[in-house]
């Protein structure tokens, strides 16, 4: 029993040590982003939907050529999403109330301050770099695609057609090209002909956005999308029409993705430590109950046996006494009889 309890405690302790780390890492906290990290500001009032950012991204990142050339704007008739061959896409949104014409919006990885993909990855394939980009490391990825489940912006994509080494494909904010010194701004930003995209430090971008709000009263909604959404993102949007009309969800809230699972993960070490103790306790109670029941049974049997023996002894004693009494009376009877006979004989002789 002692050894068993020890073993189970050992197991629990081991599990707790292994898992305790995760709960700590996922504890509730506020992360305002790496200071000095970079991002991009997208201005929906400037974008003309020319798709040159798509072309720039495609070229810089060496992605396969799409079936329709980039100057074919008919693809904008359909709402598209990023896929394994396209890190970024521009969509056109028609018939928005209050807008003079169609509004365009570019989509790509938002580079969250606390990325859902990085938090959900069980091999830590994603890294939030201090420069702001969220990058993916193909050398450890198992291809489980939980990052795609987790991402609130539907950004990571998967090479379903690859047999040996399918990759997760998503925008890297050209982090690798910029750190290698090949580029100074991401491919899409460099290709934009109307400065709808600005690359810079996130703090500066927020200031630039507010500057435009002040400089062009009535042109913008007083909201920078990405400042707080999902805990904040390095990619920021400003627009003259509601964000939900240009495909940006307004119901995401400001809680960062890791916080949604931190509570559940925090319970893990508690289960790992408290559960074995409780279960051993339950086991001990039942063992004790069994033992008591067994003892009571033994006791009852002993008592019953003793009682039976006692009764038997008494019976025997009584029988013995009875027998002795019988014998005595029989002797007396015989003696009396003999005496009587003797007396009778005497009287007859006397006659």
């Amino acid at each position, binding site marked *: 029993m002692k050894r068993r309890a020890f073993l*189970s405690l050992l197991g629990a302790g081991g599990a707790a040590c292994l898992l305790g*780390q*995760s709960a700590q890492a996922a504890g509730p906290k506020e992360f305002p982003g790496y200071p000095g990290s970079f991002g991009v500001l997208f201005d929906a009032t400037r974008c003309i939907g020319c798709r040159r950012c798509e072309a720039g991204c495609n070229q810089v990142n060496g992605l396969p050529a799409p079936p329709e050339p980039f100057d074919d704007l008919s693809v904008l008739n359909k709402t598209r*999403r990023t896929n394994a061959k396209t890190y970024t896409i521009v969509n056109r949104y028609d018939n928005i109330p209050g807008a003079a014409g169609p509004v365009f919006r570019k989509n790509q990885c938002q580079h969250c301050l606390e990325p859902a993909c990085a938090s959900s990855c069980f091999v830590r394939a994603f890294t939030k770099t201090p420069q702001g980009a969220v990058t993916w490391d193909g050398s450890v990825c198992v291809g*489980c695609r939980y990052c795609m489940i987790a991402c609130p912006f539907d950004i990571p994509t998967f*090479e379903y057609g690859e047999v040996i*080494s*399918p990759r997760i494909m998503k925008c890297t904010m050209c982090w690798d090209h910029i750190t290698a010194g090949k580029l100074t701004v991401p491919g899409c930003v460099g290709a934009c002909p109307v400065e709808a995209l600005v690359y810079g430090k996130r703090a500066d971008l927020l200031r630039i956005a507010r500057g435009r709000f002040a400089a062009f009263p009535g042109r913008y909604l007083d909201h920078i999308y990405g400042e707080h959404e999902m805990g904040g993102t390095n990619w920021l949007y400003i627009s003259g029409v509601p964000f939900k009309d240009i495909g940006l969800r307004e119901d995401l809230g400001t809680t960062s993705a890791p916080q949604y699972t931190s509570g559940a993960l925090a319970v893990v070490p508690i289960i790992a430590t408290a*559960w074995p103790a409780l279960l051993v306790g339950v*086991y001990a109670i039942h063992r004790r109950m069994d033992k008591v029941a067994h003892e009571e049974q033994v006791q009852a049997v002993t008592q019953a046996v003793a009682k039976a023996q006692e009764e038997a002894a008494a019976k025997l004693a009584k029988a013995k006494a009875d027998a002795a009494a019988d014998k005595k009376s029989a002797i007396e009877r015989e003696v009396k009889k003999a005496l009587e006979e003797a007396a009778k004989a005497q009287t007859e002789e006397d006659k």
Partner: protein
Amino acid sequence: MSTATPMKKTWLTPFNIIVGIILLVGGFVTILRFTKGLAGVTNLTDNYPWGIWISFDLLCGVALAAGGFTTSAACYIFGLKRFHSAVRPAILTAFLGYSLVVFALHYDVGRPWRLPYPFFVQSGTTSVLFEVGLCVFLYLITLFVEWVPSALEWLGFKKPRNVIVRMTLALTIFGVVLSTMHQSSLGALYLIAPSKMHPLWYSMFLPLFFFVSAIAAGLSMVIFEGTLSHHYLHAKMDKTYLKEHDGVTFGFAKGAAVVLVVYFFIKIVGITLDNNWHYLFTGYGAWFLFELLGFVALPAFLYAMAVREHNACLVRWGAVITVLGIVLNRFNVSLVAFNWQLPPAQKYFPSWMEIAISVFIVTLGLLVFRFIATKMPIFYEHPNFREHVPHEGEEEEAPEFVEHELKPHPQSLGH
């Protein structure tokens, strides 16, 4: 791909033909999967990265294999020794269930040979999936150790068998701890994506819902399987198993009824806390009520009735509906509620090849179960390793099986 049985005359039974076809198709799709990639066989998209190989093979597979930890906990920790004969079949089912879950994952993930990476190369400890993976990995080992005495008895290795049997309590507790963690964590997987889930199926209590419903599923699976085994493997059962079977059926039915009622009420608590009542009057609400009333409340009621009236047939109905209800729930969470805002055209429906692989894997499980249950002491105690002391007044009957009798009973074949 052999379905060879020792009975040559009746080789072409309907059972063998159907199994043969399933195995052939499964083998064919397997080749396609590993030559054409996931795109070649699945309907998965960037919006729906997880299809039925996760919904059914992983989520349902793990929930339905919960009979292992519930039965062994009932017997060894909660002192319900009358369930002892149900432990081995339940452990075997759980072991095979988890093995097949891990096997199925090799089809689903992009680079299956890297599945050990989270534990040996680089750990992402902030991921719920890491917790699931680690617990499933450790629990699979635990289940293997729990199952291995059957094989050791079959092979006649007494010493190692006795060492493992002495670890029963520790193994059981370890199993319960691991099961609590990963059964609940499968629900916790979806906590990270509230914006993609329909509010009726999203709750901070998702882990609790998954854990409690898994207990009901586990208990129901033990009943369901007991019924099937009774039908097809009757000849392999000893008197103890048969005598205890009714007690197990009704005892588990009672347990499942209680657990289902608890589950019903915590689901109501979930709706209340998030104030999601108004969603009940939508189409999704009707579907939610269909699941909650038809597959939680109804089986709870059937179980309670069955126990009260001592009706074994009704228990079986309760078990089947509960099992279907768990499958429905896991599908609802992972496929129906997930991405509910997407337009219907972008929704996922599995390809026939994905279904074929799931059927193939279940069939493999059935075949291995039958093989082990006909060869090893699962439904009976090995005559050389008896732990069950015959009750007083019951004569020590001769073991029903001769050790070298390996031929399956004719009744166990051809069905």
